[in-house]
């Protein structure tokens, strides 16, 4: 790592390439994130539209089929109510209903206890289409007390047609039907408008399962169909069919999202929700049927919906990464190639630094800044060489003069030493006469009054002679000094 950092610190081309790459990455990241965020939304919208259309198609298909069942049932009900006076005809009408509507598996025309006194407490003309034949029987008896069953009771109590929750018959005698089916039941009225029985047609739930399960907009998406109480009427996990509702698992482990979905579906709402199902993020699109109070939902895994987006993202990211790597490599090479003259110049500069001013400067014959730098460097090197030559000459001159000055100084020092010895010598010569003068003066001062005039004269003469000697020495000294001063002035003027 240190080597890499050291290399980066030392290599301008690497630094430049990295900077370029960094800026490119920053720009691309910004652009990519904006584009991909937008793209994700567009894809989600498309997915939503696709899922919603599939859902609407399924609901419409089922609604249309259920509507055709309702129409067939309503037409037959009119026939039944017109022939209430003929109980045995009910068997034929029951068979006819199945013959005319192959989608129906069962049909029962059932009456209140003792409506037909001759028929007793139970009278229900029931036909069943087993796929090959239509079987008909009178199904009510002590072991099949239909008067308390949902399909018989609910439309009577509500006094309107009603789609029943899917169920399986528990009959142990007569025609045994093991299918799970739903029934469209409606009350039968006599001419006075009194409810006298229930007319019910059955449709096998397999038909719903096939139709609903076919709604599969994505490879891993699946559909569920909820009954009124949230019961799973269609679910890919067949162990949950009819036995579980959408709320079952929330009773032991609260799940507000699942509960909200269940409530929305039971409230016959249309919409979609984002939620986690079995540990995966999913989008659930739901819509109720018009005819029944059931609701169908398509569950699409987010990974499915955004799969094209993810694929595209990774492709772009890969291309981008490779592109940036190539950019780094090529820009590094280009920069290095372009900086090669600079490296030559660096070497030249180093030579100059080592005082080799006459080396050859590499010429790239370029006219750009580097070419100009080369020629400037070359000029600079030549100028430096000339300048350094001049300086050398001047230095040599100065050194010559220095030497002369040193010699002059040496001479001056010798002269000074000589002068000093001369002065000392002359001073020594003056010392005796001065001392004699001082002594004579002292003698005259101490005993001049007792001295005779001759003695005074002799003493005065002695003093005069000594003074003359001293004066002569001083004159000579002065004369030498004046001559020296003239000589020095002349030399200074010369220098």
């Amino acid at each position, binding site marked *: 790592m240190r080597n890499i950092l050291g290399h980066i610190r030392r290599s301008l081309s690497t630094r430049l390439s990295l900077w370029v790459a960094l800026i490119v990455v920053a720009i691309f990241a910004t652009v990519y994130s904006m584009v991909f965020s937008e793209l994700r939304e567009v894809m989600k919208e498309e997915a939503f539209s696709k899922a919603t259309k599939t859902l609407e198609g399924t609901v419409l298909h089922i609604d249309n089929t259920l509507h055709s069942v309702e129409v067939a049932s309503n037409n037959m009900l009119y026939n039944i109510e017109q022939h209430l006076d003929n109980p045995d005809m009910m068997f034929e009408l029951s068979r006819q209903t199945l013959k005319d509507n192959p989608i129906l598996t069962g049909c029962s025309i059932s009456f209140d206890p003792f409506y037909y006194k001759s028929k007793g407490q139970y009278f229900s003309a029931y036909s069943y289409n087993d796929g090959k034949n239509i079987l008909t029987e009178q199904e009510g008896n002590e072991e099949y007390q239909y008067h308390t069953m949902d399909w018989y009771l609910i439309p009577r109590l509500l006094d309107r047609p009603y789609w029943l929750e899917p169920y399986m018959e528990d009959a142990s005698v007569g025609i045994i039907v093991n299918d799970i089916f739903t029934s469209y039941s409606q009350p039968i009225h006599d001419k006075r408008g009194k409810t006298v029985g229930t007319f019910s047609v059955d449709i096998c739930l397999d038909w719903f399962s096939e139709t609903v399960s076919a709604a599969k907009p994505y490879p891993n998406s699946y559909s569920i169909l909820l009954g009124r*109480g949230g019961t799973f009427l269609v679910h890919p996990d067949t162990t949950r069919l009819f036995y*579980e509702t959408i709320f079952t698992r929330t009773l032991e482990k609260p799940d507000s999202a699942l509960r909200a979905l269940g409530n929305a579906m039971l409230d016959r709402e249309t919409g979609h929700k984002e939620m986690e199902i079995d540990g995966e993020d999913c989008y659930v699109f739901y819509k109720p049927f018009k005819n029944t109070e059931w609701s169908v939902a398509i569950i699409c895994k987010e990974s499915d919906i955004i799969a094209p987006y993810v694929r595209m993202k990774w492709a772009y990211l890969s291309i981008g990464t490779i592109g940036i790597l190539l950019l780094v490599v090529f820009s590094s090479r280009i920069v290095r190639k372009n900086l090669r003259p600079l490296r030559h110049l660096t070497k030249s500069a180093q030579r100059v630094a080592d005082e080799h001013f006459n080396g050859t400067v590499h010429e790239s014959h370029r006219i750009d800044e580097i070419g100009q730098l080369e020629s400037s460097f070359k000029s600079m090197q030549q100028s430096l060489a000339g300048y350094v030559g001049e300086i050398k000459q001047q230095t040599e001159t100065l050194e010559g003069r220095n030497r002369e000055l040193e010699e002059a100084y040496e001479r001056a020092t010798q002269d000074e030493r000589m002068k000093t010895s001369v002065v000392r010598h002359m001073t020594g010569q003056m010392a005796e006469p001065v001392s004699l003068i001082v002594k004579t003066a002292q003698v005259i001062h101490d005993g001049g009054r007792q001295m005779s005039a001759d003695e005074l004269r002799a003493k005065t003469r002695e003093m005069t002679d000594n003074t003359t000697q001293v004066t002569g020495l001083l004159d000579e000294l002065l004369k030498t000094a004046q001559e020296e001063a003239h000589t020095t002035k002349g030399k200074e003027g010369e220098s």
Partner: protein
Amino acid sequence: MKRDSIRKILMGLLLLVSLPSSAERFVFTTAWTAQAQFAGYYAAKEKGFYQAEGLDVVIQHPSLTTSVLYRLQHDHSDAFMLTLMSAIDFITQGVPMVNIFQDSMNSSNMLIARWGADPLKLKGKKVAVYSTDLNYSVFFLNHYKKLNYEWVRFTSQINLFLSGAVDAMMALSYNEYYRLLQAGFRLGKENVYRFSEHDLNIQEHGVYVRPDYYRDHKETCRRFARATRKGWEWAATHPELALDIVMKYVRKYNSPTNRTMQRFMLMEVLRLQLDRESGKREFRLRPDMVEKANRMMRECGFIKRTVTYQELMGQ
């Protein structure tokens, strides 16, 4: 290969010999389709408690489209599961029964109202009651509180309630109550009338046999009761294992339910087995409850004579 086959045949014969050859067959019909309400019976059979008592108990589940009385008159079972009040009713109708085992100590009856209403304020409204096994307590409540309900007798499930065809329904606290919760209903205290909390706590299911059978098979009945009690005690201490057994029966008889519902049911049934005074699983019919049940049923005209505790116990 030949030796192996001979060894297997010998081992099979040994196994056959080791089984109790004199295991007495005892056919018992539960009160409903396969569910956790009968966990103790299933456990007694699956854990070999019946076998240990020398019984070969066959557990049957009734068809929900026939009434209990019809079953009593036409079924060839040795024993039936009835509520205390049903038993009293049938005895007074000339179908004598003897209690050989009591698994419920409390009432599970509930009256649940739709539309967020108070069930006691639904005067004259439609109330759904079971057709196969009457909820006598609600008739007494109707009579006592002068509610004038319009009765709608239905077979099973909660579809009548879901459709809005009735305003209230009778429910059992271990079954329909949880089914309604499972269907997304939010039931507040004000929507639910629990009979056990209003001095109408009457024991419910027990196992009954005909008096002639009881007279001839007293010891068999005692062994059945002993093994069943053991089965319930085991279920109470091993609820998840008991649930495994229940789910085996649920799948076998294709009952429209799931493990979550069965877990709730088992817990509630076990709770209802605890006597309120002793706090223990007593598995006995209480004379005071028999007396109270008689009084309630007489007051609302279901019975004309009292069925004594001794009569119920075959004494």
